């Protein structure tokens, strides 16, 4: 029973860290319509920055500054935000596809640096001995997991409330206006590019924070944690939850992570050990097909607010009723 509670806490912690990434993506895509297919890169930037700042001094690589965890997380947000702002500035004056391709490139380059810049990132073996906030409690796993969960829950809640507030603020309304009708928003004197770079940077900072939290929660990071599959999982979480809705981002993350972890457990039970790698790739096929099917039949996900084009009859009325109740 106690094991089950401990596992539940562990599961929820991971799911909530995912939901933090999804919240960042929701700000970029759901609210502003910016397409980020390299979010794994921004998560990695956060994780590595915080790890460099907080680990004890290490002769084999640069840094290990031994700073407090809070400073590490703050540093992660700054570096992640700056990286996202630079990416945005390079591409946001161009067509939306260029941003997609560039973010994809960012993820490739971050992965490359993580693998090859041994002096900075420890190379393929990654960075260990990252301080954990409740490392002293590791003897009693239940307490350790619960206190991690508490910290991650609080951070996620703060991020959620802040984003909810932001999306209702004048700033958030400008972003929505830009997403819905760029020309109208520009004609009201709003600089589209400036607002978009801001949204992209804040989203990147949140993703970096999630990466840092994950690093402090597991105590060890390696380049393998930040493969394109991470980007993909988070996208599925946002689409299932419904892009545009912060609540959807959180619920979608927990739900999809539940399906992912559950099917992972199922494959480890039903498949012999030598077939597990193959079964794992089947898991990805299933989730990829799921993404495409949701895009085809229910593009709004569970809680999405992206208004459909009003049609005639009942549906149009429903849509207007829904959007007026939201605002």
């Amino acid at each position, binding site marked *: 029973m106690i094991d089950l509670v401990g596992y539940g806490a562990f599961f929820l912690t991971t799911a909530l860290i995912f939901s933090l990434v999804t919240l960042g993506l929701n700000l970029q895509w759901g609210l502003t319509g910016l397409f980020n297919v390299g979010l794994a890169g921004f998560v990695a930037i956060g994780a590595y920055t915080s790890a460099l700042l907080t680990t004890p001094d290490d002769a084999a690589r640069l840094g290990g500054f031994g700073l407090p965890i809070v400073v590490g997380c703050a540093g992660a947000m700054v570096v992640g935000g700056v990286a996202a702002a630079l990416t945005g500035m390079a591409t946001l004056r161009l067509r939306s596809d260029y941003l*997609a391709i560039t973010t*994809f490139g960012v993820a490739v380059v971050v992965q*490359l640096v993580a693998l090859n810049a041994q002096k900075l990132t420890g190379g393929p073996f990654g960075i260990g001995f990252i301080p954990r906030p409740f490392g002293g409690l590791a003897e009693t796993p239940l307490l350790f997991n619960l206190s991690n969960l508490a910290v991650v829950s609080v951070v996620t809640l703060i991020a959620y409330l802040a984003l909810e507030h932001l999306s209702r603020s004048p700033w958030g309304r400008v972003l929505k206006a830009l997403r819905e009708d760029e020309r109208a928003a520009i004609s009201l004197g709003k600089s589209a590019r400036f607002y978009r770079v801001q949204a992209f940077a804040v989203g990147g900072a949140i993703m970096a924070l999630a990466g840092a939290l994950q690093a402090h929660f597991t105590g060890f990071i390696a380049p393998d944690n930040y493969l394109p599959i991470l980007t*993909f999982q988070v996208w599925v979480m946002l689409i299932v939850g419904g892009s545009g809705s912060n609540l959807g981002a959180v619920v979608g993350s927990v739900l999809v992570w539940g399906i992912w972890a559950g099917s992972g457990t199922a494959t480890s039970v039903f498949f012999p050990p030598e077939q597990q790698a193959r079964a794992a790739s089947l898991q990805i096929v299933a989730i990829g097909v799921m993404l495409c099917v949701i*895009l085809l039949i229910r593009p709004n996900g569970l809680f999405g607010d992206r208004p459909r084009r009003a049609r005639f009859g009942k549906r149009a009325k429903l849509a207007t009723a829904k959007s007026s109740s939201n605002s």
Partner: protein
Amino acid sequence: MSLQFIVDGLLTGSMIGLGAIGVTLTYSILRFSNFAHGDFMAWGTYATLAVVSAIGATFGKVAPIGPLSFGWPLLVALVVGMAFTALLALLLDKVLFSRLRSQGQAIIVVMASFGASMALRSLLEFTFTSRPTYFSRAIQIAMPVGFGIRITPDQIALLALTAVLVLGVHLLMTRTQTGRSMQALSQNAALARIVGIDVAKVVRVTWIVGGALACVAGVMIGILVQIRPFMGFDMLLPMFAAAILGGIGSIPGAVLGGLIIGLAEAGAVQLIGAEWRAAVSFIILMAVLFVRPIGLFGVRER
């Protein structure tokens, strides 16, 4: 610095360029960047490999052609593979992309292509495992051609094949009615519809050309390097960079962009080291986006 990087660069550049033709066509005619294009490459290569093995099982061992490492089975298999990849692209368009396109949100199609790419690649991994395979394990002797450059017969044959294919696609685009329809649709879709261009046909030809060339590029990688489920995905960034460097919609641009990136990569491998190879296309991409976002031969969006 040895001049060998020129041959290596031209070969890598041919693979990138052939792939980038498909990327640039999908981008300019169907108006989305197709993240599944790399996986068309990998699927085409595995299909070709499967046909080669099937021929090998039926006819026994076939002697290679002259000094090349492969015989007629590979050529037959390549044609079958090209047809297969074109069909795969058409099928994916029918069940996924065309439906989303009709809903009118271009960026949703990009996302769907990202999902499809993940699914296609993992399906390959599931079927063939992630262990690399090869068309042939024979080792070829590289012939010196002066200036310290060496080249194998396979490499010469593949460079020639690339030249023929690029010329063919160029003629298709400029000398045939279909090609001119494709250009018209990419330059002004609304006007093209008004003058009665068969959009469905143009879309089909786009996928067929893109898919078939992706398969050839993949088989080239298979012959010269190795066959892996990730082979196409790893080419995605160079292909996008080449298409943007050359100017979206321009076939000569895509090929030239591919060659430039291939040469730059090969040069970087010599100067800095092979592990940083993938960063080259990113740096070129960023430079193009900052300095001249319409690329070398691009036209401004209308």
